[in-house]
């Protein structure tokens, strides 16, 4: 037991305390998990629970759009499909939460396929703008079949997520932490490597024998799965699934949070939600100019930190080793992995041209691009 604790401590020191960014994330998570026990204010719990739910949503967007580079402007479709599926199952069939939320998430996976398959052929801006269309189309359907979807009012009166606020908070927090860790692990795995390769150069990835279509669909489904979990949680937490969950602003929220926090990092998306969502609540002190201030702050921050908030902070707290690309705390003088000195200016090396041999090499044509 003592040895196991010592092992845990060593791992903790070696993996988390060694980098300021990780230390901050770890302590923030710890505080978020302990604080509500000491100060269970219902309003605070409500905000934090929603923040966790949206953190899953933002991280799932980052997985698809940031990490795989399939910039999805209609992410709300996954959220909305899951919310409506959970709500309808819960109300019409009286199924319990333990079934409705997973089924909602599966519905979102199906939505991932529905969106993903037509998008396989599309690239860049065409893909983004096409994805924007799907939630709007679904919203049209919601308004056409009002007796089933409740139209403008939505489906309301769902079972509560848990009997008390504190329980609700801990359910959202644990599901949130687990989902985000899962997304993080995915990006860190071999699958993540393939997905990253697709973002960097799809043609090259295909040429190396990767079935990019299949992997892109996997990405759409995984992203849909997590966004669906968030959507189901949200529906049960708010006890309503309405057309609001499909609106363009819901999609834009995920994008705003993620890019504000730092795209293609996962942790950036989470940081973005935890900074912006509570901030929007704090701004309720000035209801008249609430959204104005919110938008202005985002615009100003991004104007000066174009890569997002979290990478900006990390850049100041950590330094990348020029040789092995491992991150190091800014206080260190040499790399913790390979011992390369970090403070000396970078050595610039001439690139080597191809040596030419034989007379034919001379007139070999070089077709660019």
């Amino acid at each position, binding site marked *: 037991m003592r040895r196991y604790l010592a092992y845990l401590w060593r791992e903790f020191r070696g993996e988390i305390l060694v980098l300021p960014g990780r230390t901050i994330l770890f302590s923030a998570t710890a505080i978020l998990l302990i604080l509500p026990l000491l100060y269970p204010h219902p309003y605070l719990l409500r905000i934090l629970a929603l923040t966790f739910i949206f953190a899953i949503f933002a991280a799932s967007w980052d997985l698809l*759009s940031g990490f795989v580079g399939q910039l999805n402007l209609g992410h709300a479709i996954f959220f909305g499909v899951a919310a409506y599926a959970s709500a309808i199952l819960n109300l019409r069939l009286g199924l319990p939460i333990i079934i409705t939320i997973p089924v909602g998430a599966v519905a979102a996976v199906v939505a991932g396929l529905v969106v993903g398959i037509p998008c396989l052929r599309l690239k860049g801006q*065409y893909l983004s703008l096409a994805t924007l*269309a799907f939630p709007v189309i*679904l919203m049209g359907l919601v308004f056409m079949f009002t007796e089933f979807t409740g139209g403008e009012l939505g489906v309301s009166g769902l079972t509560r997520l848990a009997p008390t606020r504190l329980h609700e908070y801990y359910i959202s927090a644990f599901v949130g932490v687990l989902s985000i860790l899962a997304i993080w692990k995915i990006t860190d795995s071999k699958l993540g490597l393939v997905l990253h390769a697709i973002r960097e150069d799809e043609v090259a990835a295909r040429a190396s024998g990767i079935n990019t279509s299949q992997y892109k669909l996997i990405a759409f489904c995984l992203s849909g799965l997590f966004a669906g979990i968030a959507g189901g949680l949200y529906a049960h937490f708010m006890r309503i699934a309405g057309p609001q969950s499909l609106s363009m602003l819901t999609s834009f929220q995920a994008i705003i949070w993620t890019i504000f926090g730092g795209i293609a990092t996962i942790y950036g998306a989470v940081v973005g939600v935890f900074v912006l969502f509570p901030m929007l609540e704090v701004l309720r002190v000035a209801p008249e100019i609430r959204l104005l201030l919110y938008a202005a702050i985002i615009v100003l921050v*991004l104007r000066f930190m174009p890569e997002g908030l979290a990478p900006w902070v990390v850049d100041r707290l950590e330094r990348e080793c020029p040789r092995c690309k491992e991150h190091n705390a800014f206080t260190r003088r040499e790399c913790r992995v390979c011992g390369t000195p970090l403070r000396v200016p970078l050595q610039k090396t001439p690139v080597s041209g191809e040596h030419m041999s034989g007379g034919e090499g001379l007139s070999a044509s070089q077709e660019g691009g």
Partner: protein
Amino acid sequence: MLGNLLVSTLMSASVYAMLAVGFSLTFGVARIINLAHTAFYMVASYIIFTATMKMGLPLYVGVVAAVSLVVLLAMVTYKVLVDPMREHETTVLILTIGVALVLQELMFLWFGGYFRSVPTAVEGFTTLLGVRVSYQYVLTICVLIVTLALVWLLLMKTRLGLAIRATAQDREIANVMGMSDSRTATITVGIAAALAAIAGAIVAPLFIIEPRIWLSPLTVVLAISVLGGLGSLKGSILGAVIIALSENLVVFLVPQGAFFKGAFSLLIMIVVLLIRPEGLYGVAFEEER
């Protein structure tokens, strides 16, 4: 009924074409997706409202004020916020959403969320193809078509138009030929804003003014420019006609179709993209080849 359909299609097609051409030009030259594009249209309507209803100025003064203020606003926003970080594609996306939200909230703050309207420029109506058409409609359609023709002339016949077309093809080489891409892009953003403002000004008497009126035209404009091919003018105009026609058909033929018309135009866009992944006349940027 056919006449009704034709008139209202012509009307929405010309409004959409004005907005989509501006959006497409901005995309082609400045290489940004400007999600605040239709917010400029909304701001222009409010300026007209202020000038005519609050200050009692004649309508044409309102139109001139709206166009010049909106162009100034767009160019300054572009220079200060967007131009320094054009290469951060996703950040620019959020910046433009942010700008649109700021404008929307400012309008809420100054004018409240009430539905406003402005007086028409001309009274009366005429009968065309057996349909009663108000003179305001006729005037609006004429102004929009003339403006589009002027833009076409500007692009095809002038030095500036040449610079815009060349920059939309290949920024680097346009620079090498002495066309400053940053200057061209700023001017293009100005032209696009002017088109949006004229559209906003001229249709203001026909529609209700409200701070959120930028959202639904935004989806339509995106659908049109994707359908026609991003960065292509021909595509934008053709796309506007296709979308306007199909929207009006849905409203005329399907009961409760009005709820579905936005969704229907996007459905058409997706169908076109399935057949042609780069729209009808997609443009490939030379430096990205």
